[in-house]
């Protein structure tokens, strides 16, 4: 039933079960469209049908959307999934857990959740999923968006869909231009003037945008198979599908399962990362820069940057760098979240030691899952925090002992950290982001995080001005 058909008293009923205050705050904007009912994690309340006693209004409500938080220790998320699904068979139900040790997305979906999210890593994906759900529930009144590449827009062409822009300070999407209107140089100037490098398309218009963008890509290269935006989306979605199943170490995979995962990752890399016309190379890098850290953005970005650097410089194996990029930080699941989220310069000695263990933890996790990776991939993951002068970890290996793939992975990792958008920080142009990266890598007072000559070669890939 669309929201227009609802009367004033029948707003979207969002039921949250057992979410923390921080999680509720983080999702507050999505809740603006909903009448939110919050109940503590007492799963017996759900099963007994005593929900009425837990609602604000004191009357029985049928939820439209349910978000379930972390279970108490005596309950399993599987059982909660089954209970909530059996209580509300047709409702959209999401799981949001902070406990990486119990997060196994495929299993939770099989047990009844529509989707499952690891918080805060997947806060962005959760927010998008809630908006998509609200979009369906309200018949399109609530909009759900996805970011698309400005590089996919062609001056002089007629856009088939509306465009929106995101205002980070207000945390809001605002209308930019209508569909079926010519995209002009004036629009480009307006975007540049406001330092906007990403525009947004409504989810239900995405297919028409992909078709439009592919037409443009084919005009430049008749062999193009998909636009940059579509390729990026599919890469992110595919990476999430595969990587989301790797956090739970208790799952004992067989050798063939591990091989299957590696094959899937290889196929994803080959299809979405390496199969593109050569002229797109700088655009692919520039297009990923300046975005907020979101969901699997970091491993996807590092894989993208690393592979593209390898291809552009003809150094190392791009596939190995990409594979290492996707997997290099998996071991962070074993590090306390508050340590992972802390900027490196603010960690104390104990926290630094704890964080540094993620390298070996990553390799241990990959071994547990029987992922049969090549030697260069394993070496790149192991060495991605090493430094040419021996000041890195875990072993302090100097440049002569570092593989090319490892060095590219190191640079790609730092490139993403230097060029991502951080909430609260000003939005920067590409040339400013590249300058930030240059200073981070070449103008340190102490140790060099990577080979300066390699860094300079990478900076040389970009046209002057970074455009």
């Amino acid at each position: 039933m669309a929201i227009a058909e609802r009367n004033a008293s029948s707003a979207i009923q969002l039921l949250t079960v057992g979410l923390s205050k921080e999680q509720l705050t983080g999702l507050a904007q999505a809740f603006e469209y909903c009448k939110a009912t919050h109940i503590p994690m007492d799963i017996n309340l759900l099963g007994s049908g005593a929900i009425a006693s837990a609602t604000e209004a004191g009357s029985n409500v049928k939820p439209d959307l349910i978000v379930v938080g972390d279970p108490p220790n005596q309950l399993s998320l599987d059982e909660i999934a089954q209970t909530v699904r059996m209580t509300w068979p047709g409702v959209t139900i999401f799981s949001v857990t902070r406990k990486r040790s119990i997060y196994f997305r495929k299993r939770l979906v099989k047990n009844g959740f529509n989707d499952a999210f690891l918080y805060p890593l997947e806060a962005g994906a959760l927010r998008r999923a809630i908006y998509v759900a609200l979009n369906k529930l309200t018949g399109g009144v609530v909009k759900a968006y996805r970011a698309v590449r400005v590089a996919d827009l062609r001056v002089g062409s007629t856009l088939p869909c509306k465009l929106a822009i995101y205002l980070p300070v207000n945390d809001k999407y605002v209308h930019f231009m209508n569909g079926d209107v010519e995209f002009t140089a004036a629009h480009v100037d307006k975007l540049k003037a406001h330092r906007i490098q990403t525009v947004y398309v409504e989810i239900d218009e995405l297919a028409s945008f992909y078709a439009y963008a592919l037409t443009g890509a084919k005009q430049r290269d008749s062999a193009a198979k998909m636009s940059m935006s579509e390729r990026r989306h599919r890469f992110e979605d595919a990476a999430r599908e595969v990587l989301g199943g790797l956090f739970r170490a208790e799952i004992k995979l067989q050798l063939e399962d591990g091989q299957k995962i590696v094959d899937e990752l290889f196929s994803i890399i080959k299809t979405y990362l390496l199969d593109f016309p050569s002229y797109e190379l700088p655009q692919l890098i520039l297009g990923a820069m300046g975005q907020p850290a979101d969901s699997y953005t970091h491993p996807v970005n590092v894989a993208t940057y690393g592979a593209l650097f390898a291809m552009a410089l003809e150094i190392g194996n791009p596939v190995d760098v990409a594979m290492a990029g996707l997997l290099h930080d998996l071991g962070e699941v074993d590090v306390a979240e508050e340590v992972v989220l802390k900027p490196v310069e603010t960690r104390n000695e104990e926290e630094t030691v704890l964080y540094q263990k993620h390298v070996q933890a990553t390799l241990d996790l990959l071994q547990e899952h029987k992922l049969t990776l090549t030697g260069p991939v394993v070496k790149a993951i192991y060495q991605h925090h090493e430094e040419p002068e021996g000041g890195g970890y875990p072993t302090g290996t100097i440049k002569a002992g570092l593989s090319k793939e490892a060095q590219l992975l190191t640079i790609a990792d730092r490139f993403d950290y230097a060029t991502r958008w951080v909430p609260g920080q000003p939005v920067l142009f590409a040339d400013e982001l590249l300058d930030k990266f240059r200073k981070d890598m070449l103008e340190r007072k102490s140790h060099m995080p990577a080979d300066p000559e390699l860094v300079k070669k990478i900076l040389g890939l970009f046209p002057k001005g970074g455009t």
Partner: protein
Amino acid sequence: MFDKSTRVLVVDDMATMRKLVMKVCADLGFTDVQEAADGEKAWSIINNDPKPIGLVISDWNMPHLTGLDLLKRVRADKRYAGTPFLLVTAEAESSQVTDAVKAGVDNYIVKPFTAATLTEKLEAIHKKRGGAAAA
């Protein structure tokens, strides 16, 4: 379909799931639904209750005595060997269903399930048994 006066025993270590399944049974018209929190308690009810249990709906994964082991115990005792038995399995256990079939389960159902699915499974059991409850 089973006679609605059939005594049903719902076995699950999770109270909420027990209540949910009992509610589904009540919605299907069953008027005499008992519960047990694990296999051992279920066996005690089967053994000691004056009115025979006419249908067991049991979870698989439980402490003390699993659903599969309860099934084996029921099938091994001549007094109760013919009791209709439905195992409730989670997705992760569905690959073990062959063990349950070998042990003599009448049918299984994967949770989460709806009342309609449970009805189908019970009707299948009832039909397979020639339309008469064993108890």
